[in-house]
């Protein structure tokens, strides 16, 4: 056992971090809010770096890495607040040729579609499979998103689309990648709060010297570290049980929304349970770490934290945008409770 990043993994994190600092500084990120969340040129740079083809085998033109690495890359993207339909575009890499791809679960009523002005296509997951809907087929009404970095539009009737694959594993993969982004958001919010606590002076000293503030920062770090451990563990379990690609459905779907997986069900083999337990666990802890750290970051900034100018709200709102995707936290808790 060596549950610590390898040299290659550290280099990968550093590389993505450098890319984010060079191309997605906070002014650029804020500017993206005015162009639908995606700039084609920057998106192409992400694609050329291999962000979306991480899991595609090398002999098929991809990077040929695993889920653990995908988690590390998405963690860095979250930390830098990089907007855009990152999760869908990675998952879509093996099944469609589009560059900017959204991914949602088929709702029973109207759909809220993220990045409606910039996507080429939308992948839709339901109990029967995954379907590609061309963006041109979508009739989108404008909506005012809470998160400036996650624009949304309403679609009253989602077309069925064209089948591109079975539904096996998609939800867990999406949940894992959302969790990675949120661990990154929790980190970014904590870093912003700590640097402010070091600089901001009141009563003649940095506010981070007061235990009330220092201890809030320590709790932010603790949440983030616990969520990170859960995320890395989930990545390793995914690599051990799923492999990087999209395997044929091995005897049952992993689509779970609205149904708790019965551990005694024939589908509930040991590996499957380990995977569900690890992914749902990472999901809950990452979502809560991002939410709490976002709120604490606002609090530590005091009045300025409540302004648009300070970046604290951007972490919090992006965390909120990522949480209600592919199952509520209660559903994930139910999945785990069934295994206690």
């Amino acid at each position: 056992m060596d549950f610590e990043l390898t040299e290659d993994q550290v280099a990968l994190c550093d590389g993505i971090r450098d890319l984010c600092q060079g191309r997605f500084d906070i002014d650029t990120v804020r500017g993206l809010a005015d162009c639908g969340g995606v700039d084609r040129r920057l998106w192409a740079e992400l694609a050329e770096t291999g962000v979306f083809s991480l899991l595609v085998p090398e002999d098929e033109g991809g990077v040929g890495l695993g889920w653990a690495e995908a988690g590390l890359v998405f963690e860095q993207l979250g930390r830098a607040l990089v907007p855009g339909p990152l999760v869908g575009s990675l998952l879509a890499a093996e099944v469609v040729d589009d560059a900017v791809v959204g991914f949602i679960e088929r709702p029973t009523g109207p759909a809220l579609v993220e990045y409606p002005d910039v996507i080429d296509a939308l992948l839709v997951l339901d109990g029967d499979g995954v379907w590609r809907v061309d963006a041109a087929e979508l009739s989108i009404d404008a909506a005012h998103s809470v998160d400036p970095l996650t624009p949304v539009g309403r679609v009253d009737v989602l077309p069925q689309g064209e089948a591109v694959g079975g539904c096996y594993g998609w939800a867990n993969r999406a949940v894992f990648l959302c969790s990675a982004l949120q661990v990154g958001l929790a980190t970014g919010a904590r870093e912003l709060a700590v640097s402010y606590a070091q600089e901001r002076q009141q009563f003649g000293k940095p506010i981070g010297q007061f235990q009330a503030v220092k201890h809030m920062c320590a709790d932010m770090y603790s949440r983030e570290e616990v969520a990170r451990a859960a995320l890395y563990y989930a990545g390793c379990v995914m690599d051990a049980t799923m492999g990087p690609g999209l395997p044929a459905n091995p005897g049952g779907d992993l689509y779970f929304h609205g149904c708790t997986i019965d551990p005694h069900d024939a589908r509930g083999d040991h590996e499957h349970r380990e995977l569900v337990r690890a992914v749902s666990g990472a999901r809950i802890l990452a979502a809560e770490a991002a939410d709490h750290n976002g709120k604490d970051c606002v609090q530590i900034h005091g009045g300025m934290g409540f302004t648009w100018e300070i970046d604290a709200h951007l972490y919090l709102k992006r965390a909120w945008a990522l949480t209600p995707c592919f199952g509520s936290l209660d559903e994930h808790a139910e999945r785990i409770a069934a295994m206690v």
Partner: protein
Amino acid sequence: MDIRFTADEVAFRDQLRDWLTDVLPTLGDPPDSDDWPARREWDTGWQRMLYDAGYAGINWPSEFGGRGSTPTEHLIFLEETTRMGAPYVGMNFVGQLHAGPTLILEATPEQQARHLPAMLKGEEVWCQGFSEPNAGSDLASLSTRAIRDGNHYVVTGQKIWTSFGHVADYCELLVRTDPDAPKHRGITWLICPMDLPGIEVRPITTVAGSSEFCEVFFDEVRIPVENRVGDENDGWRVAMVTFSFERGTAFISELLGTMNQLADMADVARNICRNGSSAWDDDEIRREFGRLQVEYDALWALTKRVVSQAQRTGMPGPGGSVFKLYYADVKKRMAELAHRLLEREALVFGDEAGDEQTGGDMVASRLYVLSLSIAAGTSEIQRNIIGERILGLPKER
């Protein structure tokens, strides 16, 4: 990152499991918790069995009689022994995990030869004399005085929270040898035999009604100078060497035991009937079980990260403070969940036979968890450590 165990690690686990399968049935029933002579015999007897089988001092270097195992093997050892219900390290804790490792790094060859083999064989029980009534979180302000008199230190003062002080043979003792120096620079680390004249040990009764803690009073106790470990007035540094061993693996048995307890509690919840359905049918209760499981799983993953960092660098990673802080809170939530299940039965300690129905150990646990955010550095101190040493926030002082 690789969470899979290597072939060697798997072989180590298999061999250990075979041995445990053979010896555990021969142990008989554990003694009553307040029968101290019997508990000493039980704990030291288990230590002797470990020694004879080559598992004593699992993390100690082999040149000092230990097994010289890797941190990962140590983790496997704790995981398997907990899983199979083997005795806990118990009153061998200080010797095996604090005093022994300190002697390995800091003591003279004579001191090492005198004590290390005896610790490994279960022939010496050690206790810790660090905290004082007026030196808790601010440990370095300790004031138990040691005055040099020829070949002896004459020690007068009081120690507190000394676990197993009433059955220990030796104490790792911090004393003030220079009252005029800055507080960290006037402390000395001594090996104190507990049978010296002038030592009085008084058990402390905890809120749980147990008495594993003691106060220890020193009235002009003469400790030979040859019992000093490290230089005079260098004891703070020697003590900090000890503390670094506390992180990493110290909570593995505790965490795994808690995970077993959660599974037992879930069975209780499924069997408790209220208003015509089981407590498990209550959405809030069931989801809280799910969340607690998630957090324990994550803490186990965090432990593996800390252990892997120790394996790479020789030092546990900063996850140790995070673990302790987070674990104390989660375990308190688990105790509260237990009491939502038990309702009025939570007023009664269960008899041993009735544990399954009444959750007697859950009642005791509700009291025990109060100590988790206090012992071995309070949660407030852990937050200071994280804030200052990891995040780089300015010190208050």
